């Protein structure tokens, strides 16, 4: 039996999506099954079972998971302890002396490790790496025993300045391993050898907090897969959009914090680039939020860190996702000053919009779309029937009457303000970062975004929108597409004009060696390998750094060390691109080295997803849709449209997982891959 099927599984809050690709035939199939809670492995296995009868034919299963994210958000990680430098047990709790909200001074913070499980030991390293006080290993052993007695399932060693010299941390780690009954023992310099103790400690502590939970979940999944005859590779999507082997995921679960959404962005990048548009902005409209990411030249923008919640900082490279509180369930209201507001309060998916009839009486963005006829009340996503009358009443009462608008005007106003907020998020990731939006295409995915795609063209000046053929399973598809990627960081802290480039070369070599070993160990076939090196640099005195991409030659695994002049030139280019003004005669500093080792996985042909045969371009029906005024719009079955079909607005395209609105003046064309390309009619 040859193993020829690749399976991507994305477990979301409501649905588990499965994308199965037969590599031999190029045929892809998709399935949606309900997510099971609290143990997601039930839905996971059901979803795969719905696609493949015999798991021995499966070459790889790639998983985008929210297990880690949920454990962090719901504070359901393990009871853990930390052992830290004398004088510093409160770093996790003191944070960077911030507060949850600028105004109001309310709210407090409980770190995931309570104070009585944060133990101190004598040890100290100075900023230049000098060993000031060797670690007291008897104290470490005693602290470890105390934490075990207290029922801790994992322990992290967090020492000040360990990024500059990990010796004390490593010694403590070895001592703890000898007494700790499981593998959940870690130290901060292994997880993030980067300067800034709060960010490093927080990342390492949250990692330890997730280890027992996530590794247990993944082990259960893997065992169940093996039991059913699965003999291929089991891979996990990381927040950086790459995949990692399951044992790496068990050791570094904090890297899965944005696993699910990252896979979606990876798929979006691939779909768009294949369609000829390497510059896109993705928009995932959910029940409570709108998540935006920018992809330039086929590369998703990466962020260095994120806050999962107040005080819960995770610093690992991750796909940059900007979130605003304007989703389908966001509530529209008029404030005491007479201004129409959308959110931040949301009815989410439960109780959801007023029209769902589950008890919410305040109008949402989705209610406005329903009242305006843009969503078919008889065929909504997820089934059932919608209560249009109730949605009208809610819009009248909460928006129409206070503003003196008719029901339709009020609903249009809600959509316009929601669109403006979504456009603001798109501007934030494009214009604010120096990208010209006219160069970018907008790609909505998830269920709700395609209703607002045309508005984004008008509001932000984007050239076009691309609606993928299966926008509802984008994340599952991304699992199958994602490359294997390992990120490394090391704080260097040297002046550029006196940098030890040989030492820097040796550090890059070490990262490359480790990364390549991890690629080998995963047992995956790669189409190619790549190494990306960047330096975090700044002028002396600045604390914020610029990421400076550094071209580095790697031949047969050997790294050629970079030269100082090359580094200086690369800095000037990166700094100018970011800020415009160079500082004449400014002295520059290299703070961190970042290396990514990438194993490129073979890509499948998206044309296999394209519609086959003649299909039909005849509207299924017509419906009254409000677009400034009531108009009779043609309703199409989107999946029946053949390649090359061109549908002018006003029209509504429907399919099981989304609804697409084509406004007057816009035209939608089905491309060779089954994507719908939405442009202004005169530009087409």
């Amino acid at each position, binding site marked *: 039996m040859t193993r020829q099927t690749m399976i991507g599984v994305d477990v979301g809050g409501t649905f588990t999506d499965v994308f199965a690709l037969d590599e031999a035939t190029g045929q892809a199939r998709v399935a949606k099954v309900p997510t099971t809670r609290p143990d997601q492995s039930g839905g996971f296995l059901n979803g795969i079972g719905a696609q493949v009868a015999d798991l021995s034919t499966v070459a790889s299963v790639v998983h985008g998971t929210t297990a880690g994210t949920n454990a962090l958000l719901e504070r359901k990680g393990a009871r853990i302890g930390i052992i830290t430098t004398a*004088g*510093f047990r*409160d*770093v996790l*709790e*003191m*944070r*960077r*002396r*911030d*507060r*949850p*909200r600028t*105004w*109001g*001074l*309310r*709210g*407090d*913070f409980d770190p995931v490790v*309570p*104070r*009585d499980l944060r133990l101190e030991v004598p040890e*100290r390293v*100075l*900023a230049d790496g000098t060993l*000031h006080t060797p670690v007291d290993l008897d104290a470490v052993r005693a602290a470890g025993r105390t934490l075990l007695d207290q029922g801790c399932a994992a322990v992290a060693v967090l020492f*000040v300045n360990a*990024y500059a010299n990990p010796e004390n941390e490593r010694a403590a780690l070895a001592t703890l391993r000898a007494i700790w009954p499981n593998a959940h023992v870690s130290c901060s310099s292994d997880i993030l050898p980067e*300067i*800034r*103790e*709060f*960010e490093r400690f927080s990342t390492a502590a949250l990692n330890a907090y997730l280890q027992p939970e996530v590794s247990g979940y993944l082990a259960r999944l893997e065992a169940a897969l093996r039991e059913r005859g699965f003999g291929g590779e089991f891979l996990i999507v990381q927040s950086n959009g790459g995949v990692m082997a399951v044992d790496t995921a068990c050791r570094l679960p904090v890297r899965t914090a944005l696993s699910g959404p990252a896979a979606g962005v990876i798929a979006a990048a691939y779909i768009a680039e294949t369609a000829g548009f390497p510059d896109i902005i993705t928009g995932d409209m959910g029940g409570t939020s709108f998540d935006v990411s920018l992809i330039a030249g086929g590369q998703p923008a990466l962020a260095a860190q994120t806050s999962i919640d107040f005080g819960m900082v995770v610093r690992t490279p991750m796909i940059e996702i900007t979130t605003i509180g304007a989703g389908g369930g966001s509530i529209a209201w008029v*404030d*005491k*000053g*007479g*201004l*129409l507001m959308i959110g931040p309060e949301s009815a989410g998916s439960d109780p959801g919009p007023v029209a769902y009839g589950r008890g919410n009486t305040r109008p949402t963005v989705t209610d406005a779309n329903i009242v305006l006829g843009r969503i078919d009340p008889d065929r909504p996503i997820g089934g059932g029937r919608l209560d249009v009358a109730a949605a009208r009443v809610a819009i009248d009462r909460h928006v129409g009457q206070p*503003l003196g608008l008719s029901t339709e005007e009020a609903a*249009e*106003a809600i959509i*316009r303000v929601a669109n*403006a*907020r979504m456009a*603001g998020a798109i*501007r934030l990731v494009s214009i*604010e970062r120096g990208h010209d939006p006219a160069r970018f295409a907008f790609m909505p995915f998830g269920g709700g975004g395609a209703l607002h795609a045309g508005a984004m063209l008008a509001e932000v000046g984007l050239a076009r929108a691309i609606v993928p053929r299966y926008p509802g399973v984008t994340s599952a598809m991304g699992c199958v597409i994602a490359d294997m990627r390992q990120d490394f960081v090391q704080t260097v802290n040297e002046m550029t004009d006196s940098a030890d480039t040989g030492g820097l070369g040796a550090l890059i070599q070490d990262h490359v060696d480790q990364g390549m070993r991890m690629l080998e160990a995963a047992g995956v076939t790669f189409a190619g390998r790549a190494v990306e090196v960047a330096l975090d640099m700044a*002028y*002396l*005195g*600045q*604390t*914020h750094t610029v990421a400076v991409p550094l071209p580095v030659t790697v031949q047969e695994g050997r790294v050629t060390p970079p030269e100082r002049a090359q580094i200086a030139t690369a800095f000037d280019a990166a700094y100018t691109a970011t*800020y*415009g*003004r160079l*500082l004449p005669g*400014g002295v520059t500093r290299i703070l961190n080295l970042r290396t990514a080792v990438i194993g490129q996985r073979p890509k499948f042909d998206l044309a296999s997803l394209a519609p086959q045969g003649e299909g039909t371009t005849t509207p299924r029906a017509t419906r009254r849709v409000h677009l400034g005024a009531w108009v009779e719009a043609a309703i199409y079955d989107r999946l029946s449209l053949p390649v090359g079909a061109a549908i002018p607005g006003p029209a509504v395209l429907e399919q099981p997982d989304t609804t697409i609105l084509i406004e007057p003046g816009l035209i939608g064309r089905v491309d060779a891959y089954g994507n719908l390309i939405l442009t202004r009619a005169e530009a087409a």
Partner: protein
Amino acid sequence: MTIDPITLAVLAGRMEQIADEMDATLFRSAFNPIIAEAHDASHGLYHAETGETLVQGKSGLPIFVGVMAFAVKAVIDKAAADGDLAEGDIYIFNDAHIGGTHLSDMRLVRPYFHQGRVFCHLASVGHWHDMGGAVPGNYNPQATEVFQEAFVLPPVKLMRGGVLQQDVVDIILRNTRLPASAQGDLNGQLNALDLGVKRLDALLAEYGAETVRAALEALSDRAERLIRAEVAALPDGRWQAEDFLDNDGISDAPLPVRVALQIKGDRLSLDFTGTAPATAGPVNISRGTAEAAVYVAIKHIFPGLPANAGVMRPLAITIPERSLLSAEFPAPTGGYTETILRMIDVIFAGFAQAAPDRVVANAYGTINALSLAGHRGDGRRWVMFSFYGGGHGGSAEGDGLNHGNAPISTATIPPVEILEAAYPVRFTQWALRPDSAGAGMHRGGLGAVYEIELLEESAQAFLFGERGCFAPKGAAGGGKAALNRFGFQNGGDWHAPPLVSKMVGIGLKRGERVRLETPGGGGYGLPENRAPALVARDVVMGYLTAEAADRDYGIAWREGQQ
């Protein structure tokens, strides 16, 4: 011109985004950590004729929201007097008596022209690392005139018709201990203003100047309606509150700050009569700063209010002449933060009587500007300057936040590792301070302990702090927090400053330490109403010693221990 509510809602977001983006540009490109890390800066759009705040960035320092209007007005007056305003001009100044706050804050004001007329002003303010004067970092508690605090720059043109006046730049850079840092921050502020102009150009091209102007007016009106509605919902009445500053850094005498708060229908008046006269030492503030402090307090009590001048319209503020709150040139103002924090504390204490569920108990109430400075072995000068944190007050909802930032600020603190990598120091402690929070049904947040050891041959330390004699107060029956405490080593012995939390030129030798222990926040509600299990938990966690628990809460918690 009236504006439809939908366009208004759209434009409100667009304009706020412009100010936000100017903030972000400066935070990323500034050189000194007080801006880059602590976000001690702000940007906004201001009225063409009055200078009133139209739109302010969300991430800028709260106190600047109100105070920048005075800075812009100073430039408007200067331009009118000189009569030579031209497109492409940018003014720069740090004079605190006409622009508010203190001399460390460098303000750039750029009149924004549309079709040959000033449409509005764009402004940028940032806290520079050093502006000369007697003390590195400019927090000089012994100053009796501004001249001992820093170099004073009145509003002058930094750019004329788009041309940088290098003379002005040269004068500024010659008057700072850290010229590279100053040059970097200046560049960052210019970048932020350039960006504001670009974005505003695009906005006016898209919507037209009349629509945008109408939107700005409508947003101010809306802010006024919002605060009137909030105030009208509170009971009518008159309440008084007072608190004290420890001293002015010169003489050891407490300084009262008093407020009488009156609510009548939708109008609110705040009368600060009875507050101490202007002082010899640098805890004075200008009238503009005082009004801005009122704004900060009001916005904390009603967090939903927008950041524009409409909020101030229904407020009647009375500030006595020649008082601590209306000092005149050249009275020193370097420690303005301490005085505005005390103003906010008394306003909170007044509201705590009027509407106890709307306020939090007092936060730690001092900025604790601590600097260590000296020269390295190779002669290079170093200045480590930072503000330190403390606890927030308890509220009706829950306990106060441990180790927060000051209510006038959103500043974060630099990491120990960044400080140790940049300066010859070693932190020997960076911890929460047990027993520092005020007791209450909802206790205050904890203050902190910072202990720093010198790794060079010698250095000097400077401290400008408060709350060493008068502790942060509780609300609704909650208890006081602990006092601020500072000590330094000299020849092996520990000493405390004679003026408690203010001192200059403390000599330190290698291996000697300074130790700062900051107040927590006041408690909220009667301590006997705190659940014994929560008291017991605080003892187990070491937030509270058993002795303090017995004293503040009685011994009931001991039964809950098992």
